[in-house]
């Protein structure tokens, strides 16, 4: 965030890679192609890890609630620890959410990454259900080729 709000005074700072991150901020609406990247980023983060869903779009779709290529509830695909509603939320709201998350971590409430491991089938089924839409439109043959290619790797 900018120097006016200065999150560094709470010891919070942006990191350039998921390997160094503790908290994943999902800011704004999540299209299907973004979801693929979000899942990949989330799974690359080392444990313990937390997710902060930011804005109305990640809670119920916001103004994209009936769009064909955005998801409406992020918590169905990756476990969300804390959400900030609003469109857009103020920077103060985000800082408040981060501090609430710190308190939750200290009291042991925030442990959604454990849920992801326990209920992986549920999350994986939800992810596959929507991500199927992002496959090429030219039919099953391409998908089979892609799967064959990944299995060779």
């Amino acid at each position: 965030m900018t120097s006016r709000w200065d999150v560094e005074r709470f010891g919070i700072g942006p990191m350039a890679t998921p390997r160094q991150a503790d908290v994943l901020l999902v800011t704004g609406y999540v299209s299907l192609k973004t979801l693929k990247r979000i899942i990949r980023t989330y799974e690359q983060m080392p444990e313990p890890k937390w997710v902060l869903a930011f804005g109305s779009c990640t809670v119920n779709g916001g103004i994209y609630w009936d769009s064909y290529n955005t998801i409406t509830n992020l918590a169905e695909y990756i476990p969300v620890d804390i959400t900030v509603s609003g469109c857009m939320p103020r920077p103060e709201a985000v800082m408040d959410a981060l501090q609430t998350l710190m308190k939750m971590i200290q009291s042991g409430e925030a442990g959604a990454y454990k849920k992801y491991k326990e209920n992986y089938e549920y999350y994986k089924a939800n992810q596959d259900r929507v991500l199927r839409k992002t496959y090429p439109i030219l039919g099953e043959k391409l998908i089979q080729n892609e799967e064959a290619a990944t299995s060779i790797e």
Partner: protein
Amino acid sequence: MIEILRVFLFGFFAIFIGLFFMGIGRKIIARIQLRLGPPFYQAFLDVGKLFSRKSITHNFVMDLGMVMSLAGLVATMLFVPIAGHTAIKTSSNLIVIMYLMAIGYLGMAMAVAASGNPNATIGVSRALTMMLGYEVPFFTVMLGLIIINGTSSLELIANSQAGSILNWNMIKFPLGFIAAEIALQAMMGEKPFDAMIAPAEIASGPMVELSGKYLGLAFLTHAVSIFVETAIIVNLFMGGASNIFTFVLKQFEIYLITVIIEAVFPRFKIEQAVKFLWTVPMSIALLQLVLIVF
């Protein structure tokens, strides 16, 4: 037994002082940018947090390289005289120090090359290119000081500046000090010479694959490197010190200059940085060398 404990004490002291400097440096940068900044002990909290996290390793070479980079710098630190105390006494420690300091960077290069991330490889190739850039002017300055003192022992060079502040090499050879100071900026990897880190461009370069404990080790390595590099400058140009407190204060003055430059400058591209280091500080250092020799 006492000797081994002494060596450990030196290592822990360097790490502690380095982390303390890093915390204060972050606070100073924040104040320059009109922010409140983190508390001064933030670096200790960060390292504590990183060591308590799970971390992802790619292979054995990565583990080995990270430990090697920290061990190489701690080994360098054992040869640096701190206010008259040296863990391992030798008669020509300046050459040993400059030789051992490269091992830290080579260990880091080995670790990140093993991780296989292209960003990390770009970062390390930049770091090694930068090393080529800053070592030439820095060695030229050192050569001048070795010629005039007739010795390559850091203790003797530091002792030769004893007495008043006018005996300091900083006052006697101001051109050499300026050249060494610019080279130090590159040695520490601070702006404008931080092309190897460049978070917005190559995702923090060598550190891109480091998670948890590995990033913690990288933090400790950086802390020791801050300590070693400032200590060399203090011994070469500011006459060492009679007690440890004065020595750390002098080191902090050197680090403060670096941090203030870091806070206001943008970043050089790697070829610009090497070109700059081989022209401006290099010509200043050569001029100083000519003035010393003739």
